[in-house]
């Protein structure tokens, strides 16, 4: 297998190097790639969409259709993790802790499930007391990370960033919550159902905004036709449309990141994790 691998790799490498022979120089401003379409984008995009970040303008407007499927792909990944790993069966071996006394109960193979609440709480199998310092610091940092994520989503038009990046950062703040406390804190705080619904709703916002344009008399995703629905300057309607879809993307990505993390780290049982 190793030998075969080397042969295939060398063949591919040779082919690719052969292809580089006629490349224009790196950074050449007059290469065909930076002349044909890109000049049109750079010169017209700001004027037509009022969005200074050209990448966002192209991503969410000119090639918004790509981005829609990209979001679908993300949704799909979350759904796939759910479908593949989610395990609804209850574990027979359980650990409980009596909160007032701190006594740990080890229940083997019983059908009766203790009521979890004021007196008892669930316990992981390899239980580690969560570290006080990490816990406190994360408690302080997490709201700021979340605010920052929302800021990134909202400022996708003006600075680098956008729905996807903001969603990922928000998702990792939730992951941080799960790491610094334990997985159950996250799962109890935000239910699985909520994540599932949000993941779908996020993409639905995107597709929905696109679809509304059709009865308004435009093509799919043609935000300029939304002007009658939204108060404000019709000049900025495309920027507003982009903001709308980025919020959708952000919601979907947040939920999906959390779903993937929770399912992988707990093998789909949603009880204990990293």
């Amino acid at each position: 297998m190793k030998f075969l691998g080397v042969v295939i790799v060398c063949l591919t490498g040779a082919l690719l190097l052969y292809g580089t022979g006629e490349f224009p120089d790196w950074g050449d401003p007059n290469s065909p790639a930076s002349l044909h379409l890109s000049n049109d984008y750079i010169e017209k995009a700001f004027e037509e969409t009022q969005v200074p970040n050209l990448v966002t303008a192209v991503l969410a407007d000119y090639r918004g259709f790509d981005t829609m499927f990209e979001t679908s792909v993300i949704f799909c990944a979350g759904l796939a993790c759910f479908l593949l790993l989610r395990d609804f069966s209850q574990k027979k071996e359980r650990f409980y802790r009596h909160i007032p006394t701190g006594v740990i109960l080890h229940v083997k193979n019983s059908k009766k499930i203790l009521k979890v609440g004021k007196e008892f709480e669930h316990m992981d199998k390899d239980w580690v007391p969560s570290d006080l310092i990490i816990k406190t610091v994360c408690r302080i940092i997490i709201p700021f990370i979340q605010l920052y994520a929302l800021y990134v989503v909202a400022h996708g038009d003006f600075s680098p960033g956008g729905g996807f990046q903001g969603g990922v950062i928000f998702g990792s703040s939730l992951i941080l919550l799960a790491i610094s406390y334990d997985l159950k804190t996250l799962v109890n705080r935000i239910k699985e159902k909520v994540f599932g619904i949000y993941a779908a709703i996020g993409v639905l916002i995107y597709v929905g905004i696109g679809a509304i344009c059709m009865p308004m008399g435009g093509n799919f995703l043609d935000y300029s036709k939304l002007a009658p629905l939204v108060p404000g300057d019709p000049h900025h309607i495309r920027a507003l449309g982009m903001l709308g879809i980025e919020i959708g993307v952000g919601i979907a990505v947040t939920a999906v990141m959390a779903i993937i993390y929770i399912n992988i780290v707990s093998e789909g049982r949603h009880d204990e994790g990293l």
Partner: protein
Amino acid sequence: MDILVIFCLTIGLLFFLGGAVGIIRMPDFYSRLHPAGKLDTLGIFAMVMGLAIYNLHHFSFEALLLSAKMFLIVFFVFLSSPTATHSIVDAGMRAGLRHWTKKKRKG
């Protein structure tokens, strides 16, 4: 003004250099964490300070906010860097890594 910037950046670079040398030279994992975790933190502090001062060259309200934003980085690094260091040490302790001592070397 420029001199101040250059001074800050050089100091920062010096701290980073100390951190880098410390990482290479220290005998064991725990003592390596000392330069890595802390000299770098101070290095970030010094360098961001220098850059923030440079940013205020053309003074305006926006530039001030931008410098504040840079200091936000310092704020978070000051919070998170010791925590990360602590967490790594804790991991090392739990993993059962022995720390280097002088006696061991002599005996």
